[in-house]
């Protein structure tokens, strides 16, 4: 099988970045997910194998190690709540419970309407702003259970095309690890990380 023309063009551009084709396996897996609406399918892994010269088994070996490669379907908005040590101490578990309760989607599952997937994750590098939450890998820090409920309600009502971390932080965040970085102009358009070559970035609306 082959992907859509736009995706194949992106795949070629990603492959061209690496001296060894097999090095492109991880971005290509994201591309495969983006092509299939966030889900990494067997066909997607086969296509990555063809493109990288790896065997499908080797591609699957990579894909099955990283939890960010979703092989059981994923919703329009993937809400990831950190429950590693810093976030746990600052109430990450309560945030997770609030998200699960507000969305009606238990931890590790995807809602029947396909709007939300909820998961707990290990450290996402935001200990200074614990507890931290990601929506489609866009970070928002210092989130209380109440703010998390608001966040979920806002997502369900507004259904934004693009999710931008800075925007979420302004609306629903609290204490941040760092707040002197450049302003974020782009965000994620789907449940894979926002990355130009993947075509998963959108302008801040």
């Amino acid at each position: 099988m082959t992907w859509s023309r736009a995706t194949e063009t992106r795949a070629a551009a990603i492959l061209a970045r690496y001296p060894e084709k097999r090095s492109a396996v991880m971005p290509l897996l994201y591309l495969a997910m983006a092509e299939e609406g966030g889900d990494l399918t067997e066909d997607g892994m086969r296509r990555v194998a063809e493109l990288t010269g790896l065997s499908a088994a080797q591609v699957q070996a990579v894909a099955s190690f990283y939890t960010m490669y979703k092989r059981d379907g994923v919703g329009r908005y993937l809400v990831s709540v950190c429950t590693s040590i810093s976030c746990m101490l600052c109430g990450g578990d309560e945030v997770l419970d609030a998200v699960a309760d507000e969305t009606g989607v238990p931890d590790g599952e995807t809602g029947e309407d396909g709007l939300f997937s909820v998961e707990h994750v290990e450290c996402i590098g935001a200990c200074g702003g614990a507890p931290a939450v990601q929506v489609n890998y866009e970070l928002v820090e210092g989130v209380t259970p109440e703010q998390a409920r608001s966040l979920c309600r806002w997502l369900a009502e507004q259904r934004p095309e693009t999710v931008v971390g800075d925007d979420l932080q302004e609306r629903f965040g609290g204490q941040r690890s760092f707040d002197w970085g450049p302003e974020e102009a782009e965000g994620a358009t789907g449940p894979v990380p926002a990355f130009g070559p993947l075509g998963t970035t959108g302008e801040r609306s």
Partner: protein
Amino acid sequence: MPSQPDLVTFTVDGKEAQVPAGTLLIEAVKAAGVHIPHFCYHPRMKPVGMCRMCLVQVEGPRGMMLGTSCTMPVTEGMVVHTDTDTVAKAQEGVLEFLLLNHPLDCPVCDRGGECPLQDQTMAAGPGESRFVEEKRHYPKPIPISDLVLLDRERCILCARCTRFSDEISGDPLIEFKDRGNATQVNTFPDEPFASYFSGNTVQICPVGALTATPYRFRARPWDLEAVESTCPHCSVGCRISVQASRNEALRFLGVDNGPVNQGWLCDKGRFGFEFLNSGDRLDTPLVRDEDGDLVEASWAEALDRAAAGLSAAAAEGPGRLAGLGGARSTNEEAYAFGRFVRETLGSNHLDAQLGDGLDPRVLAGITPRAAIDDLERARTVLVWAPDLKEELPVLYLRVRRAATELGANLVVVHPRATGLDPVATHTLRYRPGAGTEMLRRLADGSGDLAAVRAALDEGPVVAIIGRPGLGDDPRLAEAVMAFAAGLPDAAVLPVTRRSNVYGAADMGLAPTLLPGRVANDAPGRDAAGILEGLASGDLGGLVLLGSDPATDYVEPQQAAAALDAAGFTVAIDLFLTPSAAKADVVLPALGFAETEGTVTNLEGRVQKVNRLLPGPGSARPAHEILEDLARRMGGSIGAASAEALAAEIAGTAPAYAGITWEALSWGAGREGIVAPGPEGSQPLAVAPEDHAPPPAARDLVLHQARVLYDRGTLTQAGPSLAKLAKEPAAYVHPEDATRFGIKAGAAVRLTGSGGSAELPVVLDPSLVAGTVYVPLHLGAALGAGLEISMEAVT
């Protein structure tokens, strides 16, 4: 003791020892006589340090350090301890963890009794475990291919199987999945572990996680009897251990013969023992009765009939009889067959090949001849030969190792993609019939071939040369050899597949040869000439020794017609093959592992084959049958025993002088002895000549080549391999498909020189347009002619 420059001195458990610099500690310590338990380490693969079992203590500036001896190279003055309490405690701990999820089902596990985990737990493990938690459970076993089963809960994640399939065989169809707490070895869904080398992973698995379907639950290791022998399936001559219980062959294991197979086997060799136990084996002589049917007979009656028939034909005049076969026999049987045909039948019409091989003088006498192990030192490897992965699989492994691990340039010339292409530096494709032109362009080396020519000019060069397919003229192979012999520091390995065809040539089973690599100045007819003679009546009779021309001759239908026309035919065989079924007398012979003798592989290495099984019914060794026939015809060929024949060969065949059973059975000789032997000489020195056939323009040419699993008698006689043969198909270049208006999956009718067949189409862009590829011996018999016509079937 003064150190040599490339040696380092180290101390293990108080003993001083010397090893070459760079040796891994685990090997160095072994050389010093100390065994270190291990699971993941394998001497033929790169170390990974996964299992942690090989921990030793090394003295360092900060005291004693525990480390894995499989990943640590020895350094000068290193002081190593393997017998301290700390090492014992560490190994105990490792075993306790390895057994965390490992079931204690040893009594029902195939590995029980020969299991490294079981043995090392008994030797170095804790008496009991502190872990009381429930062990991991998986559905078991899951078939990961037609031949291999996987019990995941037994796996200790040593990565031997995954490393083998990635590093050694190059088909990484198994991998670790769900790495982390739930790591398991598995295949991709719907992509089974269909490797030609999958059985090796079963052999090197240090637990019972991988088991082979042909052996599972068939025996306990302590019930097995074993002899070392040489695999009978192709001319590579891998060293194997034949293992049997209750007089039934149950498995073959690879034995590490460094210069040849380095421990590996292909699955055809490993699981190809089943034919020995087949119920279709001939177990009693057959003679043709008055109604023309083959009926069972006593040996005395059958031998009388055979001798009378052959004598009558011989009485018609000299050279009225002929012999075909011997390429699957031992050297001793082949030698006896040569004496029988030449002396008793009084004929020089003798051929072990069936028109599908190379000039026997080249097989026996090419100079300079390469050894397989020259691949370890080659800078450049040229392969213009059959697809090695399909026909000589373990030679493929050796070439692959040269191209990957050892960094040699690899140039592959073939009519279509081969198994070696993924690791080749350059691949060249040509249409069968246009090989001469390809060779001229390669030798010229201009334009787009300049880089290829430059690679070939880097010696030492090992050139592996044969006929890529039936459509390639043997004279082309010789012309390529002549070209290759002129490359820098070059040696040539002429390759053809049938198992002991090199031994048969060395024993004089060719019209142009006498035993011991001596030219025959009065050559008789070759296979083509013999079959013509039988058809025309110029020849009155034929003796077949393990040869099936009605199936294997390049034009099977011509051969079948010739056998029908033959005056009198005696077939000595293991099975009632289509050719044997046409014989007047069929005599059942003992086969592999049922007789003792020697065989010669494609590099001229003579190795021993040994006897373990009694064989079926009243089947007898071929040399005894021939001796009895000779005696009935008023002579003797001195073939009272195989050992006597071996002594005669070592005494009279120049190239085999000094190669005795004694020399091959003990010490270094177990690796085999490359002829000319220790006292031997090679009277025949063939410098190949460039008398390449002129190119011929044809619209559509046929490329036919063998695949590993075909409909051959020995493959089909065992249930495990029989089902692996694929359905025949026509591989068509997409341009030709468009030209002929054919879609993939549609059918075409192909008509060749010897037959016609309707086949489904597979598109194959690796062909040169104007070529159609049909795998040989899958059921479509088209004849050997190059030209072919194709029409779409609607």
